[in-house]
């Protein structure tokens, strides 16, 4: 493996945001290293078998797995150094500690650090939620699409956001029947185009419903669903038992901010972005100079947004290193910011756009 002593730019996390950041920073001659805790690059793109929406700039019409392959190839061509199986285990006063190949600890102080650590999935608790067979929607997607395991026969999906809708569709694709998608809110959370696809398969989407219980001895054998009232209280007498051996929890995600917290970055709570996120500038710099964030760590959004934020963070890092001229920097920066605004438009994007503006304002008030 090629080794540089200390990289100019250290990117933590080789998902869509991290790869995009690494590619752009390397375009300006920066020595870039991606470290990732997993055995392969791509983050959660490796399980996205569906086609993305948006403009050509955001790979519309391409499947997540193909976008992943393109980013990996581009990073390789740009000579980005990639260190896999290497979790970052600590950040102390700007010193980043990497467990290289899970074998030896290395401390490094890179010129810039870009945290692109992604998100973790939320869960909801109900009697029986610890039984084997109850899993996050992402786990189902990973084990079906990546590891190719038939995880069960019949599933109940909790949550009708895009993740729940897409996972339901992908389970049916491999012959795992979906008994129902339950949604506590009075309306479907995800895009109409995804909802239409699962409806076409005959999967009922039950709004105003929740999971009351999963039953079984060693594994889920049945799932009790129940109506909820306007205050999300279960309505007794409305219980319905569905035969199922899988429950997929698609109930949102939260930013993986631990390294940002260790680094001392200021965080703020932004419900529209999934919870606590590092305060950051329009150029993705945190409260600590030289520390950047990109992708889901800075707020839960789509992979296409993560890629654009990654490019922006990579550019900002190059600027910090004085590797890019002021004119070119301004030009590209405006293009990325414009592209992000485009992604955050429409009824689903507007709330995120406003939330992001709050985050940036907070950064400007305190750190500009």
């Amino acid at each position, binding site marked *: 493996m090629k080794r540089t002593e200390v990289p100019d730019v250290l990117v933590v996390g080789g998902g869509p945001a991290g790869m995009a950041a690494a590619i752009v920073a390397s375009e300006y001659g920066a020595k870039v290293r991606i470290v990732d805790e997993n055995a392969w690059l791509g983050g959660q793109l490796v399980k996205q078998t569906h086609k993305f929406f948006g403009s050509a700039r955001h790979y519309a019409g391409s499947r997540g797995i193909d976008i992943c392959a393109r980013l990996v190839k581009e990073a390789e061509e740009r000579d980005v150094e990639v260190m896999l199986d290497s979790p970052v285990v600590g950040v102390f006063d700007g010193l980043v500690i990497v467990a290289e190949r899970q074998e030896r600890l290395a401390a490094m102080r890179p010129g810039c650090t870009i945290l692109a650590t992604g998100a973790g999935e939320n869960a909801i608790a109900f009697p029986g939620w610890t039984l084997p067979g109850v899993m996050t929607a992402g*786990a189902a997607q990973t*084990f079906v699409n990546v*590891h*190719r395991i*038939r995880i069960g026969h019949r599933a109940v999906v909790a949550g009708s956001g895009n993740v729940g809708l897409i996972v339901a569709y992908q389970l049916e694709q*491999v012959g795992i029947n979906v008994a129902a998608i339950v949604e506590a809110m009075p309306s479907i959370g995800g895009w109409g185009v995804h909802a239409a696809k699962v409806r076409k398969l005959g999967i009922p989407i039950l709004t105003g419903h929740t999971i009351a219980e999963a039953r079984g001895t060693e594994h889920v054998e*049945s799932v009790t669903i129940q109506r909820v009232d306007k205050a999300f209280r279960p309505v007794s007498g409305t219980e319905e038992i569905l035969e199922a*051996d899988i429950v997929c929890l698609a109930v949102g995600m939260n930013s993986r901010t631990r390294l940002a917290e260790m680094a001392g970055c200021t965080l703020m709570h932004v419900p529209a972005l999934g919870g606590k996120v590092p305060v950051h500038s329009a150029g993705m710099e945190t409260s600590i100079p030289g520390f950047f964030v990109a992708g889901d760590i800075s707020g839960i959004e789509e992979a296409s947004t993560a890629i654009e934020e990654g490019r922006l963070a990579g550019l900002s890092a190059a600027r910090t290193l004085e590797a890019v001229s002021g004119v070119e920097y301004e030009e590209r920066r405006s293009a990325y910011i414009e592209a992000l605004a485009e992604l955050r438009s429409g009824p689903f994007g507007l709330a995120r756009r406003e939330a992001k503006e709050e985050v940036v304002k907070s950064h400007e008030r305190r750190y500009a």
Partner: protein
Amino acid sequence: MSNAGRTRIREHPVLGPLAEAPECTIIVDSQPLTARVGEPVLAALLANGIHVVRRSEKRNEPRGLFCGIGLCTDCMVTVNGLPNTRSCVTLVEPGMVIGTRKVEP
């Protein structure tokens, strides 16, 4: 509902046929099982019909796949003598010795 038949998805409408991978033998609770080299230990266990990989210490409840990407630690097993190893992100090597954690009641 029977939990038997947790098998591999050999054909996928988008991804095509399952990629070739060398098979190997791993030892799970003293029993030899066939696994694909490089797949997560948990995938090998599920493919062999093992969905309970550990039992909770206090209540002896079954645990298995939950997050699938190494975050929740619900699927920890012993690998080559090393306890508390996340089976969803530990990749199979030939001859690996796996212990699923059983608590005696």
